[in-house]
């Protein structure tokens, strides 16, 4: 029975390593969360966006508790470095996401960065933001077999209801 963990094995570790140290990793993610709350859509390396997503959604869950809650206020105070965003979080984002149960963010991959590193980039945005949409939902064409059959069925039902 192995009682100690070998240095190079990382089975089951969920958190990625960023920056110079664990504190630096939290600072990096904190900057990203602040930027997301301010601009509502940011473009960053995919790994950072993925890591930050969990923290952002938990912050919104805390904000839903209301700004009278002491823990919620302390969390918002730590995670948002620009203090005018605390007002935005409690007054704009919490009411916007009150009807939603979870998944307040959308993470989409974009083509690799143009620089030398060709990094895998992603754009992460809060749902319901006022900016133009990134992906237009596409309906299936009317010419597909299934849609034609459904259209015929609908017409039959209408005719039956009419007569």
């Amino acid at each position: 029975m192995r009682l100690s963990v070998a240095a190079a094995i990382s089975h089951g570790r969920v958190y990625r390593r960023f920056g110079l140290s664990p504190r630096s990793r939290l600072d990096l993610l904190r900057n990203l969360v602040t930027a997301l709350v301010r601009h509502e859509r940011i473009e960053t390396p995919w790994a950072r966006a993925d890591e930050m997503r969990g923290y952002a959604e938990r912050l919104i869950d805390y904000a839903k508790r209301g700004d009278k809650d002491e823990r919620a206020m302390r969390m918002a105070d730590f995670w948002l470095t620009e203090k005018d965003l605390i007002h935005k979080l409690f007054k704009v984002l919490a009411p916007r996401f009150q009807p939603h149960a979870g998944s307040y963010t959308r993470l989409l991959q974009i083509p690799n960065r143009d620089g030398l590193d060709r990094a895998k980039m992603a754009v992460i945005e809060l749902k319901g933001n006022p900016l133009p949409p990134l992906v237009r939902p596409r309906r299936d064409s009317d010419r597909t077999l299934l849609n034609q059959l459904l259209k015929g069925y609908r017409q039959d039902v209408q005719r039956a209801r009419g007569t």
Partner: protein
Amino acid sequence: AVLVLVHSPLPRLRALLQRCWGRLERGLWPAVFGSQSPPWGPALAVQGPALVPQGISDAGAPSLLETVVWMAAPKQRRTIEVNRCRRRNPNKLIEIKRNIDVCPECGNLKQKHVLCGYCYAKVKEETRLIRMEIYKKEGGPFNAPTAETVVLYEGEKPTEKDEGKRIIERARKRPSWFVQN
């Protein structure tokens, strides 16, 4: 066993033999014999020591075969056929991508799980212009509003859904891909 025998019929030859033997002995046992050796004469043959001690540390110069570090080197030239087999093995070729599709909006190529580059660049440019308008309206840094925002284009009036929202105006016609809610 070494037999020590000195015998000589003539005194001159005997002297010569003695001198030769003395030199030999001096060569073999330099520590034992000093500048002069005691006189030798006829003696009985006795069994001498089994091992004649040699110079222990006279390995001489180690030959080139021992000092050089041996490394692997190819013995034969690899033929072009063998080289081709190795270079063109499928695990060395670039993988072909089968996840490339055509974007239904603009017709450019895109990967299936990635956003279309052209459409994303279009949206990015429009958001940049909207953000410039927002910055002009806010006037300075750290002035995030406490109300929602809505973007209106030329000739558009705010609907009843946009009651308490901050209005950002863009001086152009509404693009077809940005549908008003």
